[in-house]
């Protein structure tokens, strides 16, 4: 049996595809991000490393990792080790809060040794890192993906939003500016695995699309839709606004930033945060000019008679007293404070932390140039997504078995049936490889497209088999028969492509995946698998 070049080509494609998909059997967790200047960072831990053990205990998956971290740091919040695949339980207890009061204000990078520092040995695939700290390492981890195939939002869980400016249509340039600012903002806030990109639709509308993989952060909605216009005013005069122009530095770690007190308030709890910022010299100058005009507060003589009002999106969030010594001074150091509330202390603490992070984020990134409107938001629970993925896998197996059975019942030939099965499988594998090559996230419609593409593939194979096997009054040579089969196959191919093409643009490309995988599938079919299959059939028929 001589194997033709077309069959060799299929084999080469198949091998390349498997390499591309790169199935991985690596145990452990992968580091998704490392906070800059943290102990973990300084010791050399970096994004992309595989953690296999902690203090000698093997870590196989994310659950193992959190369990181990909770054992080693029973009192710490697991905030810094949150991951995209599941929600770590936040356990802030009473005693822990009092601890946070001191530890959160302590500079993580300072080597000022504390008596309760814990030795932590993190083993990665290549080396070992030893950390001395009283806090869990400032890294985020997640399960190691088992292959390079990425699933879309509806299968992995996460959130997707389409955003446009309120009462204004954006040009392509304006959208790309918006995308830049928004990505920056989401990064500063610390949301991992986020993609922000401009999209447009058939009628020329431009949108910004934001996708966050994994568990959905509840504050995503706020972060996107809030313009984040921050203004600090005294009376009607603006002292400074958010963004690099006025604010040169925002403290986010160390003793200049954190939650400093919690107390009971109106049947609930309230926690207060504060952090330091540095003003640019122009903003400091403004501060001096404006405070110079102020008098002394009559009831509280140590303060000036007007307060510094902080507005976020035109809403007053906090009013700060200004010490009388600051009158007319060109101070560049200012402490910003605020609070968070909740039913109990834990809730208030979390709320304050979120508020602080939000405020810090808008101070760093500045406000967005437009007021935004979310026109579409989908958030999919990762639990549901997982169930979907499993069921789709079952379904794919059932479809394979069903189609193979039908083919076998019709032709009663093991060789032909095997040929069809192998062709179907290789088509699916090559399509998946192409999808991962172009970094396409496979959502449910995309997978439907792959299955439909394989369906047309089988149809084409039936045409080839029936042409090749046709006897009786058919006097054509085998080559002619195959040629006539390929006329049908090519016409069907162009028909599918023609029918799916409009989906690339309609509806802001949200159904592009369906069209894309179908077109990839049928293209691989006519270019690679069908020619190989026809040669295979020739071999079988000649036997």
């Amino acid at each position, binding site marked *: 049996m001589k194997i033709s070049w077309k069959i060799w080509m299929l084999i080469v494609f198949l091998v390349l595809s498997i390499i591309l998909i790169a199935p991985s059997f690596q145990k452990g967790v992968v580091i998704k991000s490392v906070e800059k200047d943290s102990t973990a960072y300084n010791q050399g831990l970096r994004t992309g490393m595989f953690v296999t053990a902690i203090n000698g205990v093997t870590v196989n998956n994310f659950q193992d990792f959190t369990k181990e971290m909770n054992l080693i740091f029973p009192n710490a919040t697991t905030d810094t080790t949150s991951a995209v695949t599941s929600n770590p339980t936040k356990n802030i207890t009473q005693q822990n809060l009092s601890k946070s009061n001191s530890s959160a204000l302590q500079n993580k990078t300072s080597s000022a040794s504390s008596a309760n520092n814990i030795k932590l040995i993190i083993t990665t695939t290549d080396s070992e890192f030893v950390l001395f700290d009283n806090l869990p390492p400032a890294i985020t981890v997640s399960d190691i993906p088992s292959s390079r195939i990425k699933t879309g939002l509806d299968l992995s869980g996460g959130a997707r939003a389409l955003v446009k400016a309120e009462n204004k249509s954006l040009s392509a340039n304006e959208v790309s500016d918006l995308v830049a600012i928004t990505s920056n903002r989401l990064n500063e806030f610390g949301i991992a695995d986020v993609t922000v990109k401009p999209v447009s639709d058939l009628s020329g509308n431009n949108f910004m699309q934001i996708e966050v993989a994994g568990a959905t952060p509840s504050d995503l909605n706020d972060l996107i839709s809030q313009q984040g216009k921050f203004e600090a005013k005294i009376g009607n005069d603006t002292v400074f606004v958010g963004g690099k122009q006025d604010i040169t530095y925002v403290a986010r770690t160390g003793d200049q930033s954190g939650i400093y007190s919690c107390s009971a308030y109106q049947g609930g709890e309230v926690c207060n945060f504060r952090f330091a910022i540095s003003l640019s010299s122009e903003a400091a100058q403004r501060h001096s000019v404006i405070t110079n005009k102020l008098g002394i507060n009559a009831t509280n003589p140590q303060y000036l008679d007007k307060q510094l009002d902080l507005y976020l999106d035109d809403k007053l969030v906090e009013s700060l007293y200004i010490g009388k010594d600051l009158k007319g001074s060109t101070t560049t150091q200012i402490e910003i404070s605020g609070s968070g509330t909740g039913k109990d202390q834990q809730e208030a603490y979390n709320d304050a932390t979120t508020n602080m992070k939000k405020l810090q984020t808008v101070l760093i990134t500045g406000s967005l140039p437009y007021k935004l409107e979310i026109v*579409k938001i989908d958030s999919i629970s990762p639990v549901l997504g997982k169930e979907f993925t499993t069921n*789709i896998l079952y379904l794919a197996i059932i479809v394979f078995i069903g189609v193979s*059975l039908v083919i076998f019942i019709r032709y009663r030939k093991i060789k032909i049936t095997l040929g069809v099965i192998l062709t179907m499988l290789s088509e699916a594998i090559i399509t998946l490889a192409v999808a991962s090559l172009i970094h396409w996230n496979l959502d449910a419609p995309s997978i439907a497209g792959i299955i439909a593409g394989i369906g047309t593939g089988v149809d084409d194979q039936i045409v080839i088999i029936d042409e090749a096997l046709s006897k009786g009054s058919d006097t054509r040579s085998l080559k002619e028969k195959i040629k006539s089969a390929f006329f049908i196959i090519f016409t069907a191919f162009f028909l599918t492509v023609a029918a799916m*093409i409009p989906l690339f643009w309609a509806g802001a490309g949200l159904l592009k995946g369906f069209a894309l995988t179908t077109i990839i599938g049928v293209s691989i079919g006519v270019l690679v698998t069908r020619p190989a299959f026809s040669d295979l059939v020739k071999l079988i028929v000649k036997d």
Partner: protein
Amino acid sequence: MEANQETSHEHHHSKSDWYDKWYKPLLVIPVIIMIISLAYIGFFYYQNHTIMLRDSSLTGGTTVTITGGDIDTVALGSQLKSQFPDIVIRKLTDIRTGKPVSVMVESSASPDQLKPALEKALGYSLTGQNSSIEFTGSSLSQSFYSQLMIALVISFILMSFVVFISFRTFVPSMAIIFAAFGDIVIPLAIIDYFGIRISAAGIAAFLMLIGYSVDTDVLLTTRALKRKGGTLNSRIYGAFKTGTLMTITALVAVLPSFFIVTALPDSFRQIFFILALGLFADIFNTWLTNASIIKWYCTRRRIE
């Protein structure tokens, strides 16, 4: 199989005579089905002012999918009906285990209104873990719908182009295009009859149908017009054998998604449901409509 065909030559002949006599009257069946379908869609449009019911992704509104937990959907519905008169609640059950998989709540309200009301009715809060929320603004959904409809028309036109370029003869090409039209109209009438609410993915499935269902028509036309040898009837019969096997395998690929597992994404199930309807319709449209037209055409052109 092939040997079988040779021995039953006599039998084949009588079948052939039968087809020669009846192929024209057979054409009436699909034409009647088509007229009924079109009339029903027209009636549906007159009643509902739309040719298909649409879900929140195409009309604007919110869909909340709640996972797990045994929820009394009837009680939930009556509780929320006063506040959200257009609320639709569906329950998805796993056929294998009979266990409830999820509950879908749909309304034209925004998530800010629907979510708190749902949480109150359920007695627990909805998080990213136990629920999914999809919201589409009403102006966006309107433009999505009209764009997908335009895409459907463009797709149909492109398909017609490819057919004309491939066959370059008027009547056979029109026969294929007519069959493809039927493959869209008949499923649409069925969907309207059952009151199924179509999502964006569902309309995408109609586009796919345009490309997918005409494969058998292309096969038939190629075999009837381009292949030499054998009688016209035997060529049509050969195409019929190949084509039905194609349709059967295609149905085997799309049907399990609603018989075996139900916990699948809604978009996924809808795509497959519409493809299945289209493939069924295509059996009539290809082997009654298209085959009769081709036979008629070949007889008049004396293509034997």
